[in-house]
C-alpha cells in the first residue's frame, strides 16, 4: 500500500510539473503571437511598433485603389476619417473589398505612413463592419451611419 501511495504521489507531482510546463509554454507562445490593432491615427502618432506583425484597419478611401501595371501589386489608402495610411498588398483582394467599405489588413509597417500587408481580411456579409474599425471610427473620425436595411 505504501509504494502504491508513493506511486500516486509521483504521478500527481509529475502531472502537475508537465501541465504547468505546458501552460508556461502556451503563455510564452501566446505573448509573441499577439497582433495588436491600430487605426491610422495611432499609427501616425507613432504608437504602433515597426518590427512586428500588427493589424491596421479603417475605411478604404475612395479612388485610392491602384494596381501596378506589370504584376499583382495593389495599393490603397485606409482612413479613419482623420488620418490615412497607405497599404500595399500583393495578391488577389477578397470579394467584398470595396472603396468606401471597412477593411482589416495584417502585416508590418514600413514607415509611419506605409504598411505592407500579407493578408487582407474578407467578410461574409457586406453589411458587416469589423468591431475594431467601427470603434476607431467612432473615436477618431465620424461614425459611419449604419447602412444595414434591417426592418
Amino acid at each position, binding site marked *: 500500500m505504501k509504494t502504491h501511495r508513493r506511486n500516486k504521489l509521483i504521478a500527481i507531482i509529475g502531472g502537475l510539473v508537465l501541465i504547468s510546463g505546458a501552460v508556461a509554454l*502556451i503563455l510564452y507562445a501566446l505573448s509573441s503571437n499577439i497582433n495588436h490593432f491600430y487605426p491610422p491615427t495611432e499609427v501616425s502618432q507613432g504608437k504602433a511598433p515597426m518590427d512586428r506583425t500588427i493589424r491596421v484597419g479603417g475605411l478604404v478611401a475612395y479612388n485610392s485603389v491602384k494596381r501596378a501595371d506589370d504584376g*499583382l501589386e495593389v495599393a490603397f489608402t485606409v482612413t479613419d476619417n482623420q488620418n490615412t495610411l497607405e497599404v500595399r498588398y500583393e495578391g488577389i483582394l477578397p*470579394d467584398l473589398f470595396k472603396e468606401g467599405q471597412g477593411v482589416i489588413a495584417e502585416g508590418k509597417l514600413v514607415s509611419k505612413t506605409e504598411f505592407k500587408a500579407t493578408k487582407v481580411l474578407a467578410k461574409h*456579409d457586406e453589411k458587416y463592419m469589423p468591431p475594431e474599425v467601427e470603434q476607431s471610427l467612432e473615436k477618431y473620425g465620424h461614425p459611419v451611419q449604419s447602412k444595414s436595411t434591417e426592418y
Partner: protein
Amino acid sequence: MIPELGNFLLIMAFINAIFLGVLSFVGAHYEHQGLMRFTKRSAISIFLLILASFICLTVSFINNDFSVAYVANHSNSQLPIYYRISAVWGAHEGSLLLWVLILAGWMAAVAVFSKALPKPLVSRVLGVMGFIAVGFIAFTLFTSNPFERVLPFIPIDGADLNPLLQDFGLIVHPPMLYMGYVGFAVVFAFAIAGLLEGELDNQWARWSRPWTTVAWIFLSLGIALGSWWAYYELGWGGWWFWDPVENASFMPWLAGTALIHSLAATEKRGVFKSWTVLLAILTFSLSLLGTFLVRSGVLTSVHSFANDPVRGRFILVFLGIVVGASLLIFAIQSSKIRSKSNFGIFSREAALLFNNALLAVVTFMVLLGTLHPLIQEAFTGGKSSVGPPYFNLMFSIFMIPILILMPIGQQINWKQEPIKPLLTKYWIWALGSILLGFAIVMMMGEVAPMAFVGTALGLWVAAGCAKYILGQTSKSDSFSSGLKKISLSYWGMIVAHLGVAITVLGVVLTSYYSVEKNIKIHQGETVQVEDLNVEFYDFNNLEGPNYISSAGSFRIYMDGKLLADLHPEKRKYHASSMVMTEADINAGLFRDIYVVMGEPLDDGAWAVSVHYKAFVRWIWLGALVMALGGLLAVSDKRYRQRKRERKNAKKNGADKNTANSDSLGADSE
C-alpha cells in the same frame, strides 16, 4: 396566418418545456409513475411542436412571404427552391430555431430510446434538457423571433440570401454542426442527473457513452464539412484558419474526444469518475461558449455575419447560469463519487489519463488563444488578435506526444503491463514508419524536418492500427476468424484512429507540399506555375438564375499532358449586387488543382490564383473515417444487449454489479 401559427406553436413548446423542467424533477423525486410518464410524453410533444413551428417558417420561405421580416431579409423570389429551404437556417433567427429543434430532437430520442434505464434517471435527464430548452426557446422568442412581421409596408421582394450561403455546403453544414453541438447536451444532462442522484456507477458511463459518441460523429462531420465548404467557396484555397468561429466548434470537439476516452475508462474500470463528469459539463459549456462567440460577434472573424450585442449578452448570461449551476452541483455532490484507482504507470488507464491531460491542455490552448483578444480588451481597451502561428506551433507540439502514444495506448492492457516486452514488439513498426516517412517526404520534394516528423507520425499511427489487427488475428486459427473476434467497439477505435492518421498525413503534406501562386494572365496566354502550365483559352459572360458571371476557361498541363480543364467564375448577384468568386477544382485522391478568377486588370488581363494542393482530400477523408469509427463503436451490440440483460437482472433483483464483472472481446486477454 402561417407565421402566427408557427409563433403560437413555439410558445406552446415553451410552456411545455417549463412544465417539463419542473415536473420531471418532482416526478423523479417522489418516483411518481404518472409524472415520469408525463415527462417522456412532454419531451416528445415539445419536439413535435417545434418541428411544426419549423415547418411553418419553411412554408413561409417557400411561399415567398415577404411580410415576415426574416424571410424578407434573407430570401428572394429569384432564389431556387432548395436554397429557399436552406435559407431557413441561413441567418441568426432561423438557425436558432434549428438549434432548438435539434435540442428537442435529442430530447425525444432520449425519451424513446431509454426504456431500459431507471425511470427517475430518465426523468431527471429530460428535466435538465428541458431547462436548456426553456433558455433557448426564450432566447428565440424574446430576442430573435423569426416570425416577426413587417407591417404595413410589405417589401415587394426580399433582400436575398447572402450569395456565399447559396451553396450545397450551407444546406448540410449547419444542421450537422448543431447536431454535434447540441448532442453534447445529452451527456451533460446525464452528468447532472447522475450528480443529483449521487450515484455515478459504471452503468452511468455505459448509458452516456453512445450518446456522446453519436454527438461526436455529427460534430466531426460538421467541422469537416465546414472546412471543405470554406475551401471551395471562399476562394483562398485554405481549409482551416484558426478563426474564432472555427475554434468555437473545434473546442467542444477536442473536449468531446477527451470525454469519449475518459468515459471508456470509467465504464470499463470505474476510474476517473469525477473527471469524466467534469469533462461532460465542460464539453457542453464549450458548445454554449461556441454559440455565444458565433452569435455575439465579440470577436473579429472571417466568418462574421451581422450580429447584435443584445443577443450575445443573453447567451452569455445563460452560459453563466448553466456553468455556475452545474459546477455548484458538482462541488456539492462530487464527494459522493467514489473512484477506484489501482492501476500502474504502464496501463491503459494511465494511457487514457495521458490522452485526457494532453487533450485538455490542447483545448485550453485553443480557448486561451481564442479568448485572449477579449481578455486583453477588458484590461487594456486595445484590440488585438492571435495569429495562426501560435495555434499551429502549439497544436503541433501537443499533437506529437498524443500521436506517439496512440498506437501503444490502444494496445496496452488495463491495470498493468510490463512495458519492455510491449515496446520490443513495436520497434520494427516504428522503424518502418520512419523510413517510409522519409521516403515519402523525399518523393514529395524538399525534406522539411517538421514535414518528415508529421508524415512519420501519421504512418506510425496507421501502423499501430495494422499491428493491432495482426496481433488480434494471430491468436486465431485463420486471419478471417480472427477478424470476426474483434468486437465492433474495438473496430470503432481502430477505424477512428486510422482516420486520425489519414487526417494527419493530409494536413502535413498539404501544408508543406502545396503550391499557390497568383498570376497575371491574358486570354490565349500560357503561364508556367512551377511544374504546371496554365493556359487561359476562353472567356465568356454567362447568365445564371439570379446572377451574371464572368467565366474563364483554363487548361492545366503537366509535362505536356492535360491534367484538368477548369472553368472558374466571378459572379455578381442581382439582388444584393455582391460579387462572388466560384473556384473550379479538379479533385484527386493525391492532389487538387484549384483555380480562382481574381480581378480583371486594366489591360484586359486577369489576376488568377492557381493552387496545387497535395493530399488535401485526406484531411476530410480522415474525418469521414473517424466518423465511421464512431458509427462502428455505437453499433456494438452490447449497448442493445444490456437492455435485455438488465431486464433479466432486475427480475433476479441483483442488477447492481453486473456491469463491473463484464469483460468484452479483446480486453479480456
